[in-house]
């Protein structure tokens, strides 16, 4: 269940405003790019791009059948870091990954992988990076070894068999090496999929929802592997719907919503934008619920009317809490239960999306 957080906090507005300004900056830069590139612009670009950028994305746009899916996505991933692109279904995560990995062409924008432009120099990009898609891209009728050996041959490795054995051992698949992939469990398939992406020793690895559909244990072991790969110097760009995943793995998180990046920062940064405390009250009946709602209307609240539950956002201070209780007590509102929790990244995520929706609605009207 998604708890709606109608946040109207000051710092949210401030935050969004900073963000809008940022977008405008990019807008002007993009117009510059659109013009014929003269020396000045090229210098600009060089200055703009740091030499340690593994992935450089500016003004990425893509629409399908007139519907804009990406509306100017910008981000930079530094070499050797883990970058998480966080967003709900349909936010444009997979489209972004597909464009970044040359599987799709952008309508406009610049994408460079380790300095190579994906449009002008796809072959170099292919030698540099590798991708594991959302759905396992392996031949199910072939064995694990066969799959890996084919990959090795296509990468023109000298000893594809040796490489295959190494990877199978690393991913603890040696025992299943000579079994058809169709007999593998979901977690094993995902591991093999990841192994397939590592055959060519990529410097940049793209993972599109690497743990979607995995059980908690497989998810943890996948996280561990991603961490290990990163420790060995690989740059990793992953997309995910799970905040926990972004929090666990990423050095930098960007929240993608409806084709734009609405927030970017370290997981700690993003959490800092949150209200400090949330208190959830349960009421015995509709009357109490309605009364409580009207009493607490100067707080930001989110409600679950069917179960008579009300979440109140506070500044986290005990005094505030005492005041709320006093107000309810004085008006004889009965409370069956209450709980207090500290917000996590998920709340930040939902809040930011919510806030943006309201802003768009307002500007439409």
């Amino acid at each position, binding site marked *: 269940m998604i708890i709606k957080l109608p946040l109207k906090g000051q710092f949210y507005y401030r935050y969004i405003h900073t963000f809008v300004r940022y977008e405008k900056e990019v807008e002007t830069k993009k117009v510059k790019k659109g013009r014929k590139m003269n020396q000045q612009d090229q210098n600009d670009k060089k200055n703009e791009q740091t030499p340690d950028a593994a992935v450089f994305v500016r003004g990425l746009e893509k629409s399908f059948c007139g519907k804009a899916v990406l509306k100017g996505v910008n981000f930079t991933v530094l070499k050797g870091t883990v970058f998480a692109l966080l967003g709900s279904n349909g936010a444009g995560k997979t489209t972004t990954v597909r464009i970044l990995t040359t599987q799709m062409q952008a309508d406009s924008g610049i994408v460079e992988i380790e300095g190579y432009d994906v449009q002008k120099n796809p072959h170099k990009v*292919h*030698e540099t990076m590798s*991708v594991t*898609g959302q*759905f396992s891209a392996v031949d199910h009728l*072939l064995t694990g070894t066969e799959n890996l050996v084919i990959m090795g*041959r*296509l990468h023109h490795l000298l000893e594809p068999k040796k490489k295959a054995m190494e990877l199978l051992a690393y991913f603890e698949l040696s025992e299943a090496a000579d079994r*058809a992939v169709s007999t593998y469990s979901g977690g094993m398939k995902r591991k093999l999929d990841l192994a397939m992406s590592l055959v060519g020793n990529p410097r940049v690895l793209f993972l599109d929802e690497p743990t979607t559909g995995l059980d908690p244990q497989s998810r943890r072991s996948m996280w561990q592997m991603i961490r290990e790969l990163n420790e060995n110097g690989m740059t990793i760009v992953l997309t995910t719907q799970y905040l926990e995943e972004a929090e666990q793995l990423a050095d930098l998180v960007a929240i993608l919503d409806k084709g734009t990046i609405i927030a970017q920062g370290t997981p700690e940064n993003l959490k800092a934008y949150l209200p400090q405390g949330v208190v959830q009250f349960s009421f015995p009946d509709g009357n109490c619920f309605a009364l409580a709602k009207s009493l607490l209307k100067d707080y930001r609240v989110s409600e679950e009317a069917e179960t008579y539950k009300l979440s109140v956002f506070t500044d986290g201070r005990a005094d505030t809490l005492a005041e709320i209780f006093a107000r309810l007590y004085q008006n004889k509102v009965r409370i069956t239960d209450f709980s207090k929790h500290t917000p996590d990244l998920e709340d930040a995520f939902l809040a930011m999306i919510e806030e943006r929706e309201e802003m768009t609605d307002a500007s439409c009207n």
Partner: protein
Amino acid sequence: MQAAINRWKEIAVMAKRCMLLSKRNPDTLLTSIMLPALMMVLFVSLFGRLIEIDGTSYANYIVPGVVLQCIGQCACVTAVMVNNDLSSGIVSRFCTLPMKRSSILNGHVAEAFIRSLVTTAVVLFAALLLGVRPYTDAACLGMFFLLLCGSIAAFSYAAVVIGIAANSAEGASALSALVVILPYISSGFVPVDTLPPVMRVFARYQPMTPIVDAIRSAFFEKTLELDVCGGALAWCAGLSVLFFGVSAVMFRKKVS
């Protein structure tokens, strides 16, 4: 130079992969080995005694038709495989490898080539057992082989086009079944003149008839009818080039 070598290596790897896949798929084995032999035996034993055409036995008469029919069946398998590859996402993976994208399709065609040649060998072996005795003149055999390669190329690239165009494996299979019907409405199984009027017109002008006639002439006539063979080869070459081009364009559109 190295690039050209790599290109061929890629095609070989892709073809090998397809061969492994079709080896694991019982369906493919059935359509490639069992069906052709069965077709030959069935047609000859069902109609062999009833029909005699131009003084040759019916077994002799239908060999070219059955060969084409079986190449068509092999192409069906390719269409389904291409479609599966596209829908399973493995093509997306191949497209992010440092290799030419065209090698993916060419690998499929190369595999179809080998599989079709095996199938043809099975048909010819069955035919030999049934008493068919072709002329084993070097020129005739050479021409037969050329015609065979030409028609395999045309059928295979057509199958690739179908595989890319179809929305599902079932669709690919159904669409390519239409192609398999073509040899029936030609001079492959009965003379064109005995067909009903509408079919007769169709049969006379569709590519299968000249190809069947050319194979027949290469096989059973003492002197090669060069104009028939030339026409058939032109058809094969034209269709191969056409479908090759169309498949390349469609593939590029599909994967980008």
